């Protein structure tokens, strides 16, 4: 026999289950929606995506004229790294420890020696392929 108390308990359970189901599915839907981002972060991401598209494309075909050649030269000039990026090349480098010792004695200057033992390679710290 189903008593009134039993029916009430079943009714309450149904209500709790449907409520938790609704809450669960709403949280899933909300999690899938894009979250508002920091506008700067969003802009940087867009710029980066644009750059990736550009870098994947071949360079435009340059006309076979002196102007076309000079345009390539201008592109190269514009692509030259900034002095700030090249600052380590304003220091006085020598190719070997022996050459550095000779120069240090001659100019009475100390030596800063960087020793790199990477397992992959060969590498070159000075050129940057390291």
């Amino acid at each position, binding site marked *: 026999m189903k008593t009134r108390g039993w029916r009430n308990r079943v009714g309450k359970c149904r209500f709790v289950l449907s409520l938790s189901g609704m809450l669960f599915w709403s949280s899933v839907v909300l999690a899938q929606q894009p979250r508002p981002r920091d506008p700067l972060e969003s802009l940087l991401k867009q710029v980066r995506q644009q750059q990736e598209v550009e870098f994947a494309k071949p360079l435009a075909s340059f006309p076979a004229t002196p102007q076309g050649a000079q345009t390539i030269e201008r592109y190269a000039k514009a692509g030259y790294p900034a002095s700030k990026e090249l600052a380590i090349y304003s220091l*006085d480098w020598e190719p070997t420890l022996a050459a550095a*010792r000779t120069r240090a004695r001659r100019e009475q200057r100390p030596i800063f020696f960087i*020793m790199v033992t990477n*397992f992959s390679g060969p590498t070159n710290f000075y*050129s940057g*392929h390291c």
Partner: protein
Amino acid sequence: MRGSSLSHPDVVSTLRPFIMVSWNGTSTRDFPEDVGTLYRQANLPRDGGPIRLFVLNPAGKLEASFFPFAGQSPATLGFDQQRMGTFLKQEIQKASAGMDLSTTRMASRQLKLPSLAISETSTVSRMPAGVRILLSLEHPFSNSYRVPVIETVAANLAEEKVLLYPQVSRQVSAQSLKRWLEQLYPPGMMERSGRILDVQGELLLKPSGEDDQNRYAILQGTVYFTFDDARKTRYEGSVAIAFRYAKNADQMKSFRGVYRGLFPKQDKYGKGEAKILMQAVLESLPQLPDSQRVGE
């Protein structure tokens, strides 16, 4: 270290009195005698990481040795250039505390980019001494490429022949300029040799008119690379180079060009791909008189 702490403005200033030198090898077994002696003398712990730093006095004697980071890797300093720079500057100052550098001559601020030591027996006639390649890279979320890679390649006769002035447009195999193009790869991949295995592609060399002083030619096309990592990564890029020739000679006088492409770096644990932007400037190095020749 090269793109982070070493290029920090305070570290560059601190290093101006020093003569800089580096040595690279895949293990301590590769040491030349003088480097090995210094290594043994310093007796640094073996687990401090692959980069070791040494300060020597003007007589060439070891003053101090240390590691560039507070632990084995830059992670201990949060990969933060400011913290890494401050740490390195302090270590250099500690290491050179015993020397009076107040009157020591400093390196000028003028850039001295890598150049070529030219062989006295070079048979290359009118061609420039070689090529300098300045490769700038940008990783989407790593700061390891702040300083460009700069490679130089001495000219040879085979390239001089390939690049003679074209009376009509002709195909030039990328293979014939392999020694230049194989410099176009990202550093720090830490897998296998981490260098280029193969270069393919057909480039078009076309005569491009003349003006009062020069004749011009343009070399342009797509280059396909195979990289020596665990996956033999393939990538491609676009190159365009403008050559200048004297009006009465077929050997070029100078050139300047650009390269642009992407390197698809796979995550070692299969968690996706990061596209590294690669942009390079290729420029000819002039033949210098003996007195001005600069060694690398």
